[in-house]
């Protein structure tokens, strides 16, 4: 229970190596990008899970950081001519700072405040990016015209980036399952008062989890900006990203390591297969899925499997 199973570790390492080698073996074009997309959503859902799944404080605005990271990276590269990785790291730090502010304001009180404030943050930031130029009087954010970034490296770069990120996020989840920090977070979810009474510094841990989750999401946003080369507010602050992160984790199982992985893989592939992008029906469908999952399967697929197995014991 405390130590990670040797067998699991070996299997996972082999998988990571396998994925790393695929491009060299001929994976390219559409399939390469599809797999990259799957990795991205696993990483995003996994990051969202780090906060909302483990602490039980639902973040309804992760896209705030996706967009913030995208714009920050773009601006650092365009306005200051900084190289990609430097811009990315700076964006991550910026997101961490923003998360600290929002977290400090909202995590001292009940989860409802956090839920709605994060919901509002995304809209607010989108507005700032859209209208900011008009207020300050000069061209900075690019408004609704968006920003164009320097030419990116070929797709393999992003494939490896996302693979590395996925490994990182899954690794962090493993760490949370057995570390003091992770136990503290899960205690908060189980009973925040009980956690406090047991000596857990709940505010500090919540803020740390939120900063961790948000800055990583910000980095992925930054990468996406570089990959897309052209970003507009409507796209990188699109609430659909939040919705998808929520559903993927909810469906797969919140607060588990594999929940986001299963949920993200499933939903990304289904989305690709159906060819749906931003269609009204898709939104309605997602809403219905959320409602059904909450009412019938609140613990997600992973826990359904776990309890079946547990029952058989």
């Amino acid at each position, binding site marked *: 229970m405390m130590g990670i199973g040797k067998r699991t570790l070996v299997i996972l390492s082999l998988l990571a190596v396998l994925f790393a080698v695929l491009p060299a073996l001929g994976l390219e074009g559409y399939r390469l990008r599809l797999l990259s997309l799957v990795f991205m959503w696993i990483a995003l859902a996994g990051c969202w899970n780090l906060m909302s799944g483990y602490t039980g404080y*639902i973040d309804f605005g992760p896209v705030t950081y996706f967009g913030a990271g995208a714009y920050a990276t773009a601006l650092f590269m365009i306005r200051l001519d900084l190289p990609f990785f430097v811009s990315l790291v700076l964006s991550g730090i910026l997101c961490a700072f923003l998360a600290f502010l929002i977290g400090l*304001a909202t995590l001292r009180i009940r989860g409802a405040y956090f839920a709605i*404030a994060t919901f509002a943050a995304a809209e607010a930031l989108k507005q*700032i990016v859209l*209208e900011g130029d008009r207020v300050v009087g000069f061209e900075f954010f690019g408004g609704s015209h968006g920003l164009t970034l320097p030419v990116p490296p070929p797709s393999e770069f992003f494939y490896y980036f996302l693979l590395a990120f996925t490994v990182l996020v899954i690794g962090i989840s493993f760490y949370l399952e057995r570390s003091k920090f992770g136990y503290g977070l899960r205690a908060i979810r189980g009973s925040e008062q009980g956690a406090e009474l047991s000596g857990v510094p709940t505010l500090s841990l919540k803020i740390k989890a939120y900063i961790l989750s948000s800055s990583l999401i910000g980095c992925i946003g930054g990468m996406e900006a570089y990959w897309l080369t052209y970003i507009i507010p409507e796209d990188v602050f699109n609430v659909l990203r939040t919705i998808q992160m929520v559903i993927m984790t909810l469906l797969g199982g919140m607060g588990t390591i594999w929940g986001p992985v299963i949920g993200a893989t499933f939903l990304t592939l289904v989305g690709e297969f159906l060819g749906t992008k931003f269609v009204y029906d898709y939104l309605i469908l997602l*809403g219905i899925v959320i*409602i059904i999952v*909450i*009412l019938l399967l609140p613990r997600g697929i992973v826990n359904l499997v776990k309890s079946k197995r547990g029952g058989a014991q």
Partner: protein
Amino acid sequence: MILFLQSLINGILLGGIYAACAAGFSLAFGVMGIVNLSHGDFVMLGAFVTYWLFVLLGWDPFLTLPITLAILFFLGFFLQKLMLNRLTGVPPIMSYLLTFGLHLVLSGLALRTWTADYRTLNTVYTGLNLIVFGLVLPYSRVATFLFAMVLILGLYFLLYRTEVGRAIRATAQDGEMARLMGVRIFRIYAFTFAVSVAITGLAGSLIAQTFVIYPQMGLPFTITAFCVVVLGGLGYVPGTLFGGLILGIFESLSTTYLTAGLSMALTFFLLLIMLLVRPGGIFGKGILE
């Protein structure tokens, strides 16, 4: 000076509507602990009901208020029985997620049914104004402000002067105790949620006369309602009046002196400051735990 006063008046008129809009939110939260992320969508539905009744049947929007009230009351009752009743006793996480899903369904259905077009409700008296000391007061805005006050007073009356209201407040304070005293909790929950949705829809009807109507208008109003409630104190219904007025005035002044486009960003900024400095609202009576 005149500009300032005009801005102030606009803010007050706006604030009354905001307060009406947030009252239902505060009620649902105070009594059932439900944070309804689809709240704004009931504003939207109320607005659309009023709009279609006017456009298709020619019925004056003020006269159709009782109809909107009734329709949304039953919608709220139905939703509570169908879905939300299962949420009592369950961690609040579930209510956020469930109402979020509901938000997607409602706004998605609205988008699909009515398309994303912007619509406005124009009656014969829409453009007419009352001029007092050089200040412009549109008739419809004044009327909607007055109706909003009536709504809030009506809610106050319901909660503090009726038998049902007492049962609702008892349930809000201590559900178990209320049940032991014979209050039929689930009925109260259904009724309270229905009332919450109904008055929100009513606020939507009033909003339809002043604002542009479109399927996604709900989201900004959910955020507005939340803001009002944080200012006034979550769960403290009397506070929503003042919270609404403050927010209305703040938005109006910032629109006049800064820019219109940043209203949501400034509202959020105000919200953040409020939460950092005085999370219990101006009266300090908000439910924090």
